[in-house]
């Protein structure tokens, strides 16, 4: 049976999202498709799959990403779905544990990629917000919700940026001593 669940996570809380998806899988609900906030699950044997999420460099539809996904499939992982450049992967427990990175260098690379994405969205929102508010001032309109929302999102983005930065700093420190 299929179950649709709506849930929302900030991008910097991707580890919480991953944890939630694994908790669902442990209960016997395995992710089969994803579209924004809409998660679709199917009944499966509890604990049958481990779920991992990864932000790819390029869209999952691009050949570079496809090659990478094919490589992952050779190692027993399965592609479940994607949202923007995020891919959702799973691996059957019987095929062993599921990790994507085994050294600090690749963990740093992944987090840096997430950081860059947050920074980009943050700046875009800030610019859009500033522009919208400027238009508001120029045109003497009473309300410009769009501009305000953009600025609020930009500030929330700063929070996310700091959150990931701290995590990145921790791993980088660790990387000075261990691979």
């Amino acid at each position, binding site marked *: 049976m299929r179950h649709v669940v709506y849930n929302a996570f900030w991008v910097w809380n991707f580890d919480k999202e991953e944890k939630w998806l694994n908790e669902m899988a442990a209960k016997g609900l395995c992710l089969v498709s994803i579209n924004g906030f809409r998660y679709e699950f199917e009944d499966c044997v509890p604990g049958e799959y481990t779920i991992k999420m990864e932000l790819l460099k390029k869209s999952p539809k691009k050949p570079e990403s496809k090659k990478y996904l094919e490589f992952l499939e050779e190692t027993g992982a399965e592609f479940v779905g994607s949202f923007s450049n995020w891919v959702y992967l799973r691996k059957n427990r019987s095929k062993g*544990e599921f990790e994507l990175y085994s050294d600090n260098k690749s963990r740093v*690379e992944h987090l840096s990629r997430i950081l860059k994405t947050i920074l980009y969205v943050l700046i875009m929102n800030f610019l859009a917000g500033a522009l919208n508010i400027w238009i508001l001032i120029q045109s003497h309109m009473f309300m410009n919700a769009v501009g305000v929302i953009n600025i609020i999102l930009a500030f929330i983005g700063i929070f996310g940026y700091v959150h990931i930065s701290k995590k990145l700093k921790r791993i980088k420190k660790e990387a000075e001593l261990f691979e």
Partner: protein
Amino acid sequence: MPNNALTEAVFYILLSLTKPMHGYGIMQNTEALSSGRVKLAPGTLYGALNTLLEKGWITAIADGNEDSRKKEYLITDLGKQVAHAELLRLKELYENGNKILEEEK
């Protein structure tokens, strides 16, 4: 030859590829060689393989099976030189560690 240390992942990949192997084979071989200590994760392995290909330390070879899109890799002469240089570095590390830490006991 570079003076820097190779990563553990790179050294085990080079050792594995003295025989032609698929990505998954490298993961299994590395785990077996290190008695389960070193588990290469596919994301890390994929990045390392691409860098090694760019450097010319390994090469991609055609799989005998035409239906398969799986790629096999093999170490090059340059890759062997790098692995040998690493072995010398490790020997030095081992000998110095042994000399100083064991004599301290």
